[in-house]
Each structure stands twice: as structure tokens, then as C-alpha cells.
């Protein structure tokens, strides 16, 4: 006769029922941590923690694009050369290209709402990177200065931001 001692036990959490009608709806909890690499862009994120804004550029003189890239890329999209790094000289002064005030944000937002998200033109940079304005109210054409979260860095792109720059 087979013994019942070694029977399989239910070791999970009992699934909660949200509603019974018109169909049975259950809860399906999730708690997951992904492990994500910054890969060859690691110098950019390291640089932010050191108060440096780093960009990449294509060293191939025959390439049609030799401007700076932020967000950086490890490889040139035009000629596929491996890009080189350049640290922008502080203070980095940019111009607000456009902006929005984020009022209603999705789950997990790490900035207190409402806040101003800005897209900034930087001299010599071919791209217009997205960031945020720490204080003040942006307008198109506004001059802004890059600052860095060197104390208690978040280890993310939030480690640089902009503040109004008045000459």
C-alpha cells in the first residue's frame, strides 16, 4: 500500500479572489528585481556621480557625423566605428528646446510631482537629451546649467539635472 506521508504539499500563498461575478477574478502578485547593465555606456553613469557630463563622438574623420552624442552611444550608427569619450567642460550651459510639467506620473516615479521635464540643446551635441529642471519654470530658449547629484547619487540618469542660468 502506498504511504500518504510523502504527499505533495501546497507551500504557496493562497490566491486572493477579487470578485466572483460575472467571472472569477484572482490576484496575481509580482515582486521582481531585474539586473540591468549599462554596458559600454558605464563611463557616462560613473561620470555623473563625479560631476562630469560625458558624451561620445565618432573618431572616423571620413564619417559624416563627428558631433557629440548624449545619450552616448558606444558605436557610430553611420560608420559603425567605436566611439570615443569626451568630458564636457563645466559649467555646461544648455538651452531649453522644449519642456513639459509632469503632473500625473506612472507607478515608481522617483521625482516628486509636479516637476518640469526639459529637453536641452547643448553646444556641440547633435542630440537633444531629456532631463529635468530642479527649480524654476522653463520656457523655450531658456538658458540652463547642468548640475550633478554627487552626494547620495541614484546611479541613474537622474544624477544630472539642470538649474536656471542667468548671466
Amino acid at each position: 500500500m502506498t504511504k500518504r506521508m510523502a504527499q505533495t504539499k501546497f507551500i504557496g500563498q493562497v490566491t486572493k479572489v477579487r470578485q466572483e461575478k460575472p467571472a472569477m477574478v484572482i490576484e496575481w502578485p509580482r515582486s521582481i528585481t531585474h539586473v540591468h547593465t549599462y554596458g559600454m555606456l558605464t563611463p557616462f553613469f560613473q561620470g555623473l556621480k563625479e560631476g562630469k557630463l560625458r558624451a561620445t563622438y565618432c573618431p572616423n574623420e571620413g564619417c559624416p557625423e563627428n558631433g557629440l552624442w548624449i545619450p552616448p552611444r558606444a558605436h557610430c550608427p553611420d560608420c559603425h566605428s567605436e566611439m570615443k569619450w569626451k568630458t564636457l567642460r563645466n559649467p555646461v550651459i544648455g538651452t531649453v528646446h522644449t519642456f513639459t510639467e509632469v503632473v500625473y506620473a506612472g507607478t515608481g516615479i522617483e521625482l516628486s510631482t509636479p516637476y518640469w521635464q526639459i529637453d536641452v540643446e547643448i553646444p556641440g551635441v547633435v542630440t537633444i537629451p531629456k532631463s529635468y529642471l530642479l527649480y524654476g519654470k522653463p520656457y523655450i530658449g531658456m538658458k540652463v546649467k547642468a548640475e550633478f547629484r554627487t552626494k547620495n547619487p541614484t546611479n541613474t540618469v537622474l544624477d544630472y539635472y539642470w538649474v536656471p542660468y542667468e548671466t
Partner: protein
Amino acid sequence: MIRFKEGNLRVPKWNRRVFMVAGGTTAYRKYFPEYKLEELVMIAFKNLLEDNDLKMDPLEVKGLINYAAYGEFADHFQDQLLCQAKVHDYLGLDPLYNMGIKTGGATGGSTIMQAAMAVASGYANVALAAGWERMDEVDTRTGNFYISTAACKDFETRLGRIYSSYYAPMANRFAWAFKVSEITRAKIAVKNHLYACSSPYAQQPGKYTVEDVLNSPMSAYPLRFLECCAMSVGAAAVLICDEETAYRLTDRPCELFICGGTHTLRVADRRPMDIPLLPHETPDMYKDLIEKQSRYPGFESFLAARFAAWLTYRMAGIQNPLEELDLVELHDAFTISDLQTYGDIGLRPYGQEQDYIESGDAYYINPHTGLPGKCPSNLSGGLIGTMHAVGATGIFQAVECLWQLQQKYDKFHGDPKIWKKWGKKKPKDWQSLQIPETSKQALWVSHAGVGSHVTVGILRKSW
């Protein structure tokens, strides 16, 4: 600067003509616990097989299918990898091959393109294109976060965690560059919510005023809640055929042309380039615009949409879209994306997009003249008024275009039984939005990201 070489600009050409003959859909809801996902797809599939006046028994039609393309935006919404296998089995189509398609908000358009390529190549005579999304397993803010992972996770997602915050900067720049009042955007929201009132499938119908829109809660300045699309559950399907089979199945087939374009996921990375000109455009038209704005496409326009239109118009022989199209269904995920697209697909020149709304051309009935609009837009109610079950969206838009050209708008929107089927009562003041019988061509745009993938499809009446 994007520079093209010879092969890059080859205009796609089907190896044989491709047709769309039937469509099906569910209603769309924010929360749809009554049905599992595969059950919703079955409902849309049955609608396609049984209700389109096809000249064969539904199961005989099913017996002609030998390939399926399935669109789904996000595995993390469904929480089910290989959802297409589950759906395909549920529809009873094994062991015919199927492929899952994922191109963000353009998934529906890409899915139809995939089915069309199967027919054009000869792999299939009859292909099913179906799409779905189940966005109600998580709360709205978590849904918004999920969608925002379709921004660059390293450089953008953390700066908003909601997609409106990636479109809103475009709205501010567009308004600044072209001196556009936010009233124009609000009119788009009013129009599309209103047209949704005629649809038994609509999730967000409403009779709003411009003031209602502008006074609705802010999502990301300047985009208000009433300017933003629905987050939906639902499914849609179309049947794609070769020419011979199309006429065997229906007396009202529509020939299909569809092409796509792409551009950077991050708007930040859009380097300036020359404007690819549509057949009716000349370089002189944009001399001032480029001088003033300094960059194209910048934050104002979608190169992916322009490139898709550039190809599709040449593929279909369209010379002037405003003159030759009788209906457009555009991807109004936000009022601003709708507005921007008018320039991309040539309904107006770049810089004059707002005139498409202000002139009344975009309306079913032009509010200035009381006559039919020249090329009405989003009579389905669009994404703002009716649905955005992402993987289904580009397919639902095509279904609406097909039924309009087949003169079946009233059949599929005005029958009280359909309203009842979806738990609604047909409004007493229901209005038909059927386009005239003389209409020949309809276009729909399926659009992803902040313009990362776009398909432009055209259906041409072929009877």
C-alpha cells in the same frame, strides 16, 4: 543626417495583388473580466467569419486560411509569453503556422503588413491578421509605467513613467513653432469623443466642449486627460486574400497597400535631415520652414510616418492624399500626435497642420459649411474616443476603413442588437457616420513609440 543610398528608397511592390475582405472586432473596455483574452479573440474572429456577408460558409472560409499573423504589444500586460500559441490553438487553427508581431503601438499595422506579405509572396492565399491587448490586469498607474518602458529605459523612462510626458514636449514645441492654439488640439478631442458616441465598441464616448477638454485634469502639460487615449481590453481581426480568393469570398473586396517607416525611439536622437517630399510637394514649400525651425523632423514631426506615407503613396499611385482619400483613421494616442501626423501624411503641408481641423476638412460634416468634410478623420472615434487595446488598434482602424468603404458602417454600428451584445443601449440620437457610396479609398496610420514605427495602409474599393 540620415543619407539614403539607392536600395534604401526602393518602393515595395507585391508579387501579386493583395485584398482585404472581412473584419471583426469586440467592444473595448477599461476592465473586461467577463472574458479571457483568447475568448475575446474568438469573438472578433467569429464576427469576421460570420457577419461580413462572405459568400461561403464560415467554416469553409476558415478552411481557406493557411497562415496567421498575431499582434500583441506587451507580454508584461498579458503576463503570458507565447500568447499567440494559446490564441491560435483556441481559434482551432493548428498546425498552420503563425507569427507574433510586436512593434509597439504600430503592432496592428505591422501585423496586417505581415499577413499581406504572406499573401503577396505566395506563402498564403488567405491569411488571418488578428491583434489584442489585455491592459486591465494592473492598475492605471502601473499600466502607464508598463507603457513607459517603451521609452528608452536608460535615458527616458525614469523621467516620466507615463507616455503623455514624452508627447507633451512635442506639443509645446509644435505650438511654439507653428503658433498653434491649444483650442485646436481640444477640437480634435471633442471630435473624436463625439464620433465614439456612434460606436457600440467605444470605451470613451462623450459629448464634450472645448472648455470641458481644457478644464479636464492635467496629465503632462499641456496634455489633459480628455486628450489622451483609452487603456483598453479587446481584440480585432481582418482577413487578407489574393485576388482570386477575394472575389470568391465577397463582391466588395478592397485592395490593400501598406508600407512602414521607423525612427529613433528617443526623440533626443533625431538628427536634422532633408524632408522626403510626397508626390504633391516641392522643395520650395519648405524653404522657410527649414530656415526658421533649423531642424527636421525635430520634435514637431514624425519621420517614420512621413517615410511610410512616402512609400505607400508611391506603391498605391496616390498623387495628392487630400484629393484622393475619402477617409483617414489616424493614431490619435494624444491630440498632438494626431495633429502632427496631418503634415507627415500630406493632408496639409508641414507647418500648416492645424488648418486640416480649422478648415473643417477633418469632420464628417464640415462645421463651417454644413456639407460633408473633404476627408473626414477618425469616424471610428479613434484611440481617444473608442479604444487603444494596443495590439488590436491598427487592425481595428483597418476594419473601420473596410466597413466604411463597403458601405457597412450602419450594419456594424447602428444595429441595436450589437449595442445589446456589448451591454449597451443604442442612443436615441444615434447618428450614422457612413461615408458616401462614391468613396474609393481610405487610409489608416498605425504608430508606435514617439514615432518609432509607423505603418501607412490604404484600402481601395475594388468593385
